[in-house]
């Protein structure tokens, strides 16, 4: 099994730079997920590792070997595509065994490897069907099977579940997680779906505009985002971001006045350098971190716009008097009748502080 190392990797199309210097160390056997909004360069980065895109500058190593100019087929990788990329005129068996014919593998050996992959993915009953006779989930399993038979050092997945419906996506997600456990291979996985990222990854790499915003374990990113972008991107529903201004700082605390929340004040603990009094900051609070009225900290009174009752929890979409929308996760699943307003409190220990450039202040 191989590690993957990227050093100062860049990609340009003419004068347009899409990957702007990426340094990343992917450990052997790790499950790394690249996540970010569309156009952030996550697929391009994966395709550069695969060798489908030329690396403009920087270095790529797989298993300690420099791979910048090595043919895709000699990088010890296998890739699974969003569109499955199955050969439409071949049966499942032929799809999985096709490439091995050109690697000089004996016929019996091919049959053995195909059978083994089919067993792992429960594809045995489908071996003699052609792709158009399969469902989306089955097709994607065949695509994964085609990757498995080559026994690659590194698996690359390019949004493999995006073409599946919601239920199947959850099912396949679990299968991929199980596969990683079983094969113990390095896997690099691209998705725009942060739920997939959170559930599958050992390590998440958050990308934006060709730059890595943060690398970390799923819960680290959730609990300790490095900047506004990661804070807003990870977590569903999104973290509430509220404009504030620093009114006092010193002695390990900084006091912030929430501009649109009826001037509620919040004293936040801070160990690093404090922002100057009067500077603009952003306060982030996750929907589930609001406390009931009277629990201490800053209190806000909000007008309820819409409430969604999901059973175990409810999401309350509320507005401040100046129109800022706040989402609150409410564990008591029922509000009082046609309640129109709600008062919540913000626990300073669970609020995140960001400076005017969007960087986290701790």
């Amino acid at each position, binding site marked *: 099994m191989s590690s993957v190392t990227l050093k100062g990797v860049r990609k340009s199309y003419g004068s347009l730079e899409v990957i702007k210097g990426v340094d990343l160390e992917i450990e052997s056997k790790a499950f790394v997920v690249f996540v970010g909004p569309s156009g952030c360069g996550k697929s391009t980065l994966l395709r550069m590792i695969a060798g489908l895109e030329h690396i403009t500058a920087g270095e790529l190593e797989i298993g300690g070997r420099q791979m910048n100019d090595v043919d895709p*087929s000699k990088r010890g990788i296998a890739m699974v*595509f969003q569109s499955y*990329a199955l*050969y439409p005129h071949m049966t499942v068996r032929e799809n999985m065994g096709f490439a091995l014919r*050109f690697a000089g593998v004996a016929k019996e050996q091919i049959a053995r490897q195909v059978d083994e992959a089919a067993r792992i993915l429960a594809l045995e009953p489908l071996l003699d069907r*052609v792709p158009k006779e399969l469902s989306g989930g089955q097709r994607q399993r065949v695509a994964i099977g085609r990757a498995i038979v080559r026994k690659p050092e590194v698996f690359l997945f390019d949004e493999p579940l995006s073409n599946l419906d919601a239920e199947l996506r959850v099912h396949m997600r679990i299968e991929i997680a199980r596969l990683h456990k079983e094969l113990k291979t390095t896997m690099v996985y691209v998705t725009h779906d942060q739920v997939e990222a959170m559930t599958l990854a050992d390590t998440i790499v958050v990308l934006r505009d060709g730059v890595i915003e943060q690398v970390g374990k799923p819960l680290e990113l959730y609990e300790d985002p490095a900047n506004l972008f990661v804070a807003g991107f990870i977590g569903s529903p999104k973290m509430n971001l509220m404009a504030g201004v620093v009114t006092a700082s010193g002695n390990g605390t900084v006091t912030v006045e929430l501009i649109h929340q009826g001037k509620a004040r919040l004293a936040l603990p801070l160990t690093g350098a404090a922002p100057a009094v009067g500077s603009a900051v952003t306060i982030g609070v996750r929907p589930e971190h609001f406390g009931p009225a009277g629990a201490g900290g800053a209190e806000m009174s909000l007008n309820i716009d819409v409430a969604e009752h999901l059973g175990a929890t409810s999401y309350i979409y509320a507005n401040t008097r100046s129109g800022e929308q706040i989402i609150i996760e409410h564990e008591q699943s029922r509000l009082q009748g046609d309640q129109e307003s709600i008062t919540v409190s913000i626990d300073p220990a669970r609020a995140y502080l960001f400076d005017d450039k969007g960087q986290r202040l701790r």
Partner: protein
Amino acid sequence: MAQARLARREHLTGWAFIAPALILLGLFMIYPIIWSLWMSFQVGKGMNFSFGGLANIERLTKDPVFLRALGNTFTFFIIQVPIMITLALLFAVALNDSTLRFRGLFRTAIFLPCVTSLIAYSTIFKSMFATDGVVNQALMAVHIIGSPIGWFTDPFWAKVVIIIAITWRWTGYNMIFYLAALQNIDRSIYEAARIDGVPAWARFRYLTIPMLKPVILFTTVISTIGTLQLFDEVYNFTAGNGGPSDSTLTLSLYIYNLTFKFMPSFGYSATVSWVIVVLVAILSFIQFLIARDRRTS
């Protein structure tokens, strides 16, 4: 009741809309086709004909000129169609390469012949392949041949010129079908094959060709029909006589001559046209049979 009346009115409106086209088609397509079938059982010269049963079919088997024309047509078909289909496929794959520069220019250049005026290009071909034409001069200049080839006087070379001409004219037309089909193939199929180490020749042989099979079948059938009806080039190159000594005479040209050049024998020429219809049907059927997906059978 009201509903039935509404349905009736809708039917009438429908028929009214298609009536003009139907009348024209009936008058100028269906009626002549049926008429020609009836004609093919008539014998006699000019307008003076009578029912002859299968006499025309019997005459076919004993007519050396017809057999010659049939042989020529088959020669053109068997040699030209595969050459053209292969060339069109190769051009299409080459011109589908996104890294190729001036792709648009090449595509246009290869497609242009089939929209060029027939008379203009025939005239230029005739001058190029004349005994003292540019083709002979070029071949002699590079010492491939010692003395000029009689392109239009030698029975073998006359056929070669016809094949070159129709290949030049129709390759681009077929290429467009392949290009369109190639652009519909998901690019990641080729990327997956590249990553899996499938060499370029195998990607062409085992991925491109099978995925283009329906289009290849379509172009083959269309080209077969076109070649069996070959008339324009032969007529223009040989001043309408299929020379030298009938060596380029095709079925269509023979029909034309039987009808308009010789003492008109409408019944017999109708029989020859029905030979083309039967041949097209048989050959198309064979091609569909060969191309049939074995798995679904």
